[in-house]
């Protein structure tokens, strides 16, 4: 579904990703892990066109999307939620989701009808139902609890009916119990929508229990990939997480 081929990006001479090549199968559930600064969020930023890539290619369902604008990439079916929920503070949950649905239906600039249109409303209600947000439908986004904000952030992406959904640390800032509830919701919507889902996660228990495949990034390169079992036993991964991280210094000197 989504293929990254030799992605390179550096900021002012500092390499953020170097030669990342990854393939995400249609309908798969993948976790991306790696120490802080490994380039996980940068990878999402490159895929979604927030920053232009220096070299490489991003293929979505056989189409090269690496030079497209942020907006075109969204239109092609890549949705995204952010590490810190990115919301519209003065819109209620229902309004925000309906507005997103309207943008998806390309009716966001319609001036002669009222907001929201019936179709957008129905769509917003479905998303609220799926994420358990119906009970907060009338609350302004800025007044939501942290967990509900994260859910709404995912909901905004879902309203665009993405083929590929990127979640940047969906469980960030949550207590253990809340995390599991969140990850159950993520699993539920993945099954319900049958899309390709990629998430960044720090909690290894969650990663190894939930993900079908795991990709490990370190210093902007792919360190390992495979099933949770394979990754867990990979000596390089163990070293990256536990050891003093000898890996990467040689490449660092070369760059």
């Amino acid at each position: 579904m989504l293929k990254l081929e030799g992605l390179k990006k550096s900021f002012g001479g500092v390499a953020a990703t170097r030669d990342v090549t990854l393939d995400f199968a249609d309908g798969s559930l993948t976790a991306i892990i790696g120490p802080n600064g490994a380039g996980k969020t940068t990878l999402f930023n490159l895929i979604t066109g927030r920053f232009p890539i220096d070299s490489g290619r991003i293929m979505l369902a056989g189409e090269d999307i690496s030079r497209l604008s942020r907006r075109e990439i969204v239109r092609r079916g890549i949705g995204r939620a952010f590490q810190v929920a990115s919301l519209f503070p003065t819109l209620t949950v229902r309004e925000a989701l309906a507005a997103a649905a309207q943008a998806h239906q390309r009716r966001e600039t319609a001036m002669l009808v009222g907001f929201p249109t019936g179709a957008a409303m129905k769509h917003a209600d479905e998303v609220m139902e799926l994420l358990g947000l119906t009970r907060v439908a009338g609350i302004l986004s800025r007044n939501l609890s942290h967990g509900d904000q994260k859910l709404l952030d995912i909901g905004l992406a879902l309203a665009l009916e993405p083929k590929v959904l990127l979640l940047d640390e969906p469980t960030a800032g949550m207590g253990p119990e809340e995390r599991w509830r969140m990850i159950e919701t993520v699993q539920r919507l993945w099954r319900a929508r049958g899309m390709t889902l990629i998430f960044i996660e720090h909690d290894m228990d969650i990663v190894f229990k939930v993900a079908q495949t795991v990709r490990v990034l370190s210093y902007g390169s792919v360190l390992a990939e495979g099933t949770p079992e394979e990754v867990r036993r990979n000596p390089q991964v163990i070293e990256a997480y536990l050891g003093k991280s000898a890996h990467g210094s040689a490449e660092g000197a070369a760059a």
Partner: protein
Amino acid sequence: MTGRWRDLAWAGAGLLVLLLVPLFGAPPAIRDFIMFGMAYGLLAMSLNLLIGYSGLVSFGHAMFFASGAYAFGLAMQSGKFSIPAAFALAIVFTAVLALIVGAICVRLNEIYFAFLTLAFQMLFYNVILGWVSFTGGDQGLMGGIPRPKFLGIDLADRTQLYIFCSVAFIVCIAILRQLVTSPFGYTLRLIRDNQERAAFLGVNVPLVKLTCFVISACVAAVGGILLTLFVSGAYPNFGFWTTSGEAIFMILLGGSNVFLGPLVGTVILRLLNDITVTYTSHTELVLGIVILILVLGLRKGPLDLIAERLENRRQAAAQAVRDAADAGANGTGKGGS
């Protein structure tokens, strides 16, 4: 759509009230007050489409007010156009002007946007001042604006002029209302709240901003046309920066988060002006102090404060619903922390 019918009913009621005023023999001073209020009200209302709804702080909106006034006045003085044709021409001219200025400005960050709009307004003002043979320079369009009859309407008659302006005014307000309650209006709010995120929803942010800028300019132009018809002339100070400043101040006085807020602000400012001039010639000093008190004291417009109270009450009710749902679900939902 019940909301649509309710808005139309409000528009009808508003028009009725405006039209009843001359019937009941209101003194000319009151009618003049309302006429000025309608012209400047359109300026403030259209500017709030930018400032309040889209977060685009323009300091050059009077440029479009003046471009409507001058284009209409010059077209009428040329004697080649009927009033409806000149009206349309003035709006088209303003739209093209706004398209050019907007295309340069909307991609910039908000500080650049504020002072580039201010700068372009200054350019426009200087053109009016400098091109004496065409615009009359600092004397303005002299000699009156001819008002030939069209479709049996005679705008040289004060009452008919008043009715014409009231209808044009209400139509513009209704258009603005329709706009802000449409998907487009909500898209503007998306951009105001979080431009970055709006782009990630697939919204073409610069295009939406530019569209909003042009529409807003056209409504301001109508305000300028009404003023030109009313005072039978056009003057450079229509497009001076202080007029833009006043429009922003009207929005502050009324409130930017309430649809009719700027209109209320227009009325308050005109009253404030009228009251101050009876006591002192230093109106600017008084206005400046009022602005400082409002900005540094209240930090927002009075109507905004009231609207916020109401919103808080609504939110408390909505949160009570959520808490009840959470308690009922007994742990299957998510606890509001």
